[in-house]
């Protein structure tokens, strides 16, 4: 029966029975799409499974990829105002060659009250890592800057479109060296604020969660006739 199970798992697109280490929270967008599909199934309306109305894009497989990166602790921060640095890494290998990437959205959960009552504003910088990490150098060299934006408080999840970047990683997997996330403090700081900031940066380090919502379209499961007419 184990053999038969593995055959069926292959049909589901899995190599073996998954054994997740921790139960991940399901993002509300995935919950809603799932519930809408269940409701459509009960009414016998199974059309439109290859168009995701909530996101306004074509696609039939949604994956929430978890960040497999790590926090960086440079001996000399790149800037005096650096609050934290993290290497973000997303493994796209589960996406098969036949699938067409239609969306890649980075979600950074900064925690709901991270910046509550925080004096200075923070700035978020996201850059592509383009050079392989060599030797004892603790921090990879940042490449092309993708995002540089202020982050006002209070915060929740901020999203960034990484479709072009993810397409590049899929075409050249060896180029997927991750992303360098840096959170900086804007403006001058006095001693009191500096103390508060250390606390904030430590809390931010604990609460920061990164994920990549990837949507793909499998052409064999989505025939042109079943696609939504524009």
């Amino acid at each position, binding site marked *: 029966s184990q053999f038969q199970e593995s055959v069926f798992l292959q049909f589901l697109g899995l190599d073996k029975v998954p054994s997740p280490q921790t139960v991940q929270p399901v993002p509300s967008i*995935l919950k809603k799409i799932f519930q809408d599909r269940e409701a459509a*199934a009960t009414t016998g309306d199974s059309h439109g*499974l290859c168009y995701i109305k909530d996101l306004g894009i074509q696609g039939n*497989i949604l994956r929430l990829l*978890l960040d497999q990166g790590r926090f960086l602790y440079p001996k000399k921060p790149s800037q005096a105002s650096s609050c934290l640095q993290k290497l973000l890494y997303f493994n796209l290998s589960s996406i098969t060659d036949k699938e067409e990437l239609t969306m890649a959205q980075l979600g950074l959960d900064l925690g709901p009250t991270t910046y509550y009552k925080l004096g200075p504003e923070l700035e978020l910088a996201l850059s592509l890592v383009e050079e392989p990490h060599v030797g004892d150098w603790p921090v990879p060299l940042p490449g092309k800057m993708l995002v540089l934006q202020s982050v006002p408080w209070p915060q929740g999840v901020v999203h960034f479109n990484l479709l072009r970047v993810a397409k590049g990683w899929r075409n050249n997997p060896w180029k997927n060296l991750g992303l360098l996330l840096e959170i900086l403090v804007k403006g001058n700081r006095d001693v009191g604020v500096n103390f508060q900031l250390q606390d904030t940066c430590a809390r931010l380090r604990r609460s920061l969660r990164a994920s990549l919502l990837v949507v793909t379209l499998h052409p064999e499961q989505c025939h042109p006739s079943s696609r939504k007419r524009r």
Partner: protein
Amino acid sequence: EAVPAPQAFCRNLCHRHQLFINFRDLGWHKWIIAPKGFMANYCHGECPFSLTTSLNSSNYAFMQALMRAVDPEVPQAACIPTKLSPISMLYQDNDDNVILRHYEDMVVDECGCG
């Protein structure tokens, strides 16, 4: 004039039966987040030649039944799903990623002889 078929005979004819797939029974509840299970159903029953036309049969089943009348070695038409529908599944993979995708032909909606 139609002759009513015996009750026991009707019960044996090809039709859809209820089958609930409970992922817990398969041990899959550890990685499938939702649904917990689904009504998959199955087809079972006889496809006698005399009732081929009334049992949602395909043209092929009709021809097979005709051939069987000529050559008894030709097997009787089988009771099979004639209409299937997909379900969506939300699960976690080995990297703890959360995945939502739909799978075709998971639920038997209608049965017939084919």
